[in-house]
């Protein structure tokens, strides 16, 4: 089944590059450990043979579109990656006519690390609500319309803890943070030319690796993705100290879904929930 996707991707890449529909094709190739995958940029039709797609293709390639704003680019997108592209379109970061989306009906990816292909499905795939990309120009696989309800079991488990336990939990998690900013660099939603954390004036989070500074960084990072995080698990996957960042993102996703019935990355025309308002909503503060 994976082989079929690989062949289809190669064929499409060759066709698009030969007909000069796109100048660049972003996909995956086998990494040098011969087990995992890595991103590949294809510029010539004959290089298309290197492309693969299997269940180790964990990366979200949509972030690369931000560096390809002026060239017509095709990109291989799993449903979560396609949702990221929708968010970038929502925010006018990429132009629709400059991108060509190869949607893939995703069978799920595995938790693969360098040197081991892995067998366990990744966290995001275990409760994945959507197997067909919401937006594509060319689809590989049979589309299924169903979008399941997200159960948020992980978030609910956190909510059931006591306040003090939760505070202790996050303190323990954040104190491991080494502030490498891998979570930011991998995130398709984090494209600000100057990130708040790099500002000296005002100093939101100091560069010191200390509990308070780490607390500021991780929380504000999550809050800046409110109504924008598309559950691609990138931040948690790249975190070298395994902080469960998706627990923060998913909490906010749940709140947004409940309050505004909004799920990011579904509609290219939709406005971000914090960029708009309704006059009659959200009950008056408690008297």
């Amino acid at each position, binding site marked *: 089944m994976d082989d079929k996707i690989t062949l289809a991707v190669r064929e499409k890449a060759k066709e698009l590059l030969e007909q000069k529909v796109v100048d660049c094709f972003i996909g995956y190739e086998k990494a040098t450990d011969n087990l995992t995958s890595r991103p590949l940029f294809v510029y010539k039709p004959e290089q298309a043979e290197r492309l693969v797609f299997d269940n180790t293709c964990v990366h979200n390639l949509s972030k690369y579109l931000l560096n390809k704003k002026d060239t017509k680019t095709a990109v291989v997108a799993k449903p979560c990656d396609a949702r990221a592209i929708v968010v970038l379109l929502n925010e006018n970061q990429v132009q629709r006519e400059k991108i060509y989306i190869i949607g893939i009906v995703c069978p799920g990816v595995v938790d693969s690390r360098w040197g081991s292909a892995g067998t366990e499905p990744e966290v995001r795939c275990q409760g994945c609500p959507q197997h067909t990309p919401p937006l594509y120009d060319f689809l590989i696989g049979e589309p299924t319309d169903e979008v399941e309800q997200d159960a948020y079991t992980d978030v609910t488990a*956190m*909510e059931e803890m006591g*306040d*003090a*336990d*939760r*505070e*202790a*939990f*996050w*303190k323990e998690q954040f104190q491991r943070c080494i502030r490498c900013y891998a979570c930011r660099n991998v995130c398709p939603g984090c494209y600000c030319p100057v990130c*708040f954390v790099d500002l000296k004036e005002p100093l*939101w989070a100091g560069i010191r690796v200390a*509990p*308070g500074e780490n*607390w*500021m960084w991780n*929380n*504000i990072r*999550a*809050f800046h993705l*409110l109504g924008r995080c598309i559950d691609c698990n990138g931040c948690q996957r790249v975190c070298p100290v395994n902080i469960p960042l998706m627990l*923060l993102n998913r*909490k*906010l996703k749940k*709140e*947004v879904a409940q*309050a*505004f019935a909004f799920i990011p990355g579904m509609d290219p025309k939709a406005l971000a*929930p*914090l960029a708009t*308002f*309704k*006059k009659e*909503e*959200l009950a*008056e*503060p408690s008297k």
Partner: protein
Amino acid sequence: MSVEEFQPRIIGFLCNWCSYAGADMAGTSRMTYPSNVRIIRLPCSGRVNPMIIFKAFQQGADGVMVSGCHPGDCHYVDGNYYARRRLAMLEPFLEYLGIEKGRFQLEWVSASEGKKWSQVVARFTDTVKSLGPRGKI
């Protein structure tokens, strides 16, 4: 020496046009209310970036309150509508981080509501007092 009662440190972000004037009204009307709120005057409740609330808690605030014009009365037409959405999302998130419910509050106080301001502050101070000190993160 007697043991002093815990006096919470509360930061209040007030909009210039309604709540700040409302607090002023409470003062000129000689109403008494707890002095625990340190007021920071902002042009609009829409100016309240959630980052400054995170920062206040990180720096050791025991409670944070945001107060602005009633929805529909914003001096800048719709600033408080945006603030309402943003802060409605912030409140459960703070709780999720382990900051007890009740340490953060959003209130609408108009320029003529000096009495309401004094009541709001008294109630909020009581709540935060009962929750106890927090300390810096």
